[in-house]
């Protein structure tokens, strides 16, 4: 009787340790492994195909007719800027974007993106309520 009780307590202890170990693993390991986004510095120095996130510098975007490319600047939280050249169709909600993610590689002083993801401020306010005109 006391033996099985002892055994049970041991199992509780082992279970507790395993749970704590899981938590510790989650807290430390996930920190570096879970995000695909890299900083500007890393993107520039490696030149690898990476994902970079940052805010869109307002008014910096223009469509380059000659090369048929969308050119704009993005900034990180330190205010550092990165020039991006995107070859593709401009996303419909690009003008509303506050933050963007570019997927591509840094080459010859400019980040050449082959994919452009946008993050828009989602307010869940009706079109009429916020007084904005409807965009397609």
């Amino acid at each position, binding site marked *: 009787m006391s033996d099985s009780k002892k055994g049970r307590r041991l199992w509780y202890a082992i279970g507790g340790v395993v*749970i704590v170990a899981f938590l510790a693993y989650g807290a430390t390991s996930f920190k570096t492994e879970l*995000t695909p986004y890299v900083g500007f510095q890393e993107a520039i120095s490696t030149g690898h195909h990476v*994902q970079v996130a940052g805010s869109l510098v307002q008014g910096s975007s223009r469509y380059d007719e000659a090369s048929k490319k969308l050119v704009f600047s993005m900034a990180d939280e330190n205010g550092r800027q990165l020039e991006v050249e995107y070859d593709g169709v401009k996303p419909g909600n690009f003008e509303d974007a506050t933050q963007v993610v570019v997927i591509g590689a840094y080459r010859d002083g400019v980040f050449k993106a082959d*994919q452009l993801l*946008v993050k828009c401020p*989602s307010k869940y*306010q*009706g079109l009429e309520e916020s007084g904005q005109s409807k965009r397609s």
Partner: protein
Amino acid sequence: MSSRGGVHRVLPWVLFVWMAVVIWAAFLWAPAASGFVGQSSRIVFFHVPTAWVATLAFLGSCIASIRYLKTRQPIDDIRAQAASALGLTFAILATITGSIFARIMWGSYWNWDPRETSITFLLLIYAAYFALRGAIADPERRAAMAAVYAILAFVTVPFLVFIVPRIYWSLHPDTIINVQGKMKMSSRMLQVLFASLAGFTGLASWLYCIEVRLERLRRARQHEELI
């Protein structure tokens, strides 16, 4: 007893009408949100409740598993199994709706955003639960090991559902049920969302009850065949 049976007959119809109204309201009564591409904001009325139900079901699976280890009653194992299956199903639905939402709003079905990575982990963890169940023939051993695993699996849920998306920069907007407790939603949308959350919770509870009953019958039949 008969009145209880009556309630049980009526409840699915109440649920049916409720969900029908929710679907109607999600498409026609709630306004389209500004800043979204077209009418895409309406996915939120289905995407958020599926994620919510999945989290709830995983919690249920954890509680039933703890109970099983204490009581060793097969019914608790059945409950844990049914809740895990529901959780996995609704997590897959949340992933699909999320992926469609991401394609429309961000421009990519899948780019390994922290939110997408964390739900992949979650799906793998609970898929492994069923792999584990399938690998053990002895019912009592299977139930005990699955219960221990389900408890461990739930340890990761708060991490993957609540903590990860708040630590990392993500394309995913602030969760609607956020830490600040602020609701950044216009009232009509909020009403539809809450109605949908209630409806989906009811739907999941109903499916859960059916699955528990079915599994009991399956096991009873298996037992009879063995004898």
